[in-house]
């Protein structure tokens, strides 16, 4: 499974890419593989404020619906509208065009709580 070294991760299988004051968030290659074919994505509302570990989006595959959590406290400033027409992007490019939302973070220190690639690799074995 692909676990890029330059990203941060949550225990709940989101990846996090730092972009200045914002973070871009998606689900990992391992997560998309576990979920199987993604057929529907419920995106978070714009400007929504979320606490860390709060469920803010839903990814549904043929077989199951899964919550996606905010990795840290922040505000939704962007979401990937392309997923509405093509939810399979999450399977094909989990770290690229399959990103789900961008969160403006409240406190950059919160990112220290997240896992690095090595720790996430260890988690998924």
């Amino acid at each position, binding site marked *: 499974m692909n676990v890029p070294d330059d990203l941060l991760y949550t225990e*709940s299988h*989101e990846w996090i890419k730092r972009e200045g004051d914002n973070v871009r968030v998606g689900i990992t290659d391992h997560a998309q593989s576990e979920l199987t074919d993604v057929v529907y994505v419920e995106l978070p509302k714009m400007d929504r404020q979320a606490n860390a570990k709060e469920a803010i989006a839903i990814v549904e595959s*043929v*077989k*199951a619906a899964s919550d996606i959590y905010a990795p840290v406290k922040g505000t939704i400033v962007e979401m990937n509208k392309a997923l509405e027409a093509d939810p399979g992007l999450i399977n094909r490019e989990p770290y690229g065009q399959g990103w789900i939302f961008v969160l403006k973070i409240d406190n950059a220190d919160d990112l220290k709580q997240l896992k690095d690639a090595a720790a996430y690799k260890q988690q998924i074995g």
Partner: protein
Amino acid sequence: MRDHSRCLVWRVSEVAQRKTPLYDEHVRLGAKMVPFAGWLMPVQYTSIVAEHQAVRNDVGMFDISHMGQFIVDGTGAREWLNKMLTNDINKLDVGMGQYTLLLNENGGIIDDLIVYRIGDQNFLLVVNAARAEEDFAWLQKHLQAVAAAVSAANTVEIDNRSTEFGGVAIQGPRLVELFHALFGTHKEPPARNHIVDLPFDGMKVSVARTGYTGEDGIEVFFRATDAVKVWNAALENGKSLGIKPCGLGARDTLRLEMCYPLNGSDLSPERNPIEAGLGFFVDLTKPNFIGRDALLKAKEIGPREKLVSFRMKEKGPPPRPHYAVFQNGERIGEVTSGTLSPSLNWGVGMAYVSTTHAKVGAEIGIEIRGQKFPAIIEKKPLYKKSTS
């Protein structure tokens, strides 16, 4: 990311799971293995959608070794089975099979199964994995009770051969081509719902023309020790036909498009065949079978609820088991099966709704996470093969 679906457990549980004789092959092919009915089964190899399409367009193969097989034989076998099962077994000539139901005294469905007449006095029952032990216990219990009544001169024996047998379902429009590649061009597959024994590479296999996908197909049964040979021969010979090994995920989407009920989801001991729309497989003219009296009564009163199939009217989240069904603000039932149909690219499902609302063409609402999404009750099957 956390699953909150109730329809399928993805993680391997602590409970010991049985492995089919094809387990190592599934792992070697990279299948995602999940616990199902006490077995570790492949849910998918590469993609549920791709495997589904292989069956609709070319050919796919499923491991069905987890299913149960019972042999019933003896001079009283036919008469006795006709008291245990709903369909009329006297319609079966040797080499024929029929879809039938095992009911409790209340008319509730214990299992749906296929019974084949494999000899004058010999029958093969192919039952659901999840119910195999329960079915066998039920049949054994009744054999002791009823055997005396059949007649002292008539014998009935029942044997659970589930662990001795392996099985695969080969399904898809290119089935006949694959059959010829496997068994020789001088042989033809048996007619629909028929079963034959055929020699295969020094083994003996039983081939039945049946399936659970809506496509042309066969189910092949063999000794568990021959499973790997049959599996790999089919994959090898099917390569040029586009064969794909297929998992339980595709099996579920394929059957749901055809509105074939799944025991445990759409059928249960609390549901009778009239509610489930399976009256065609119940012969009420038979003088006596378990559940008959209850069904006659149920028929007279009329079913309170009926199993209907529906399609979502808009693109949106797919329906799932246990979602509530509404009409004009009133709750009228509950979804029992649901998915995004890979062939239709629509959310589809089946639901029990109150009989007064169970009308084809009726608009209903499926409640998903607090919001009602419009759907329409459709005729079965939801998927019809285009003849063009």
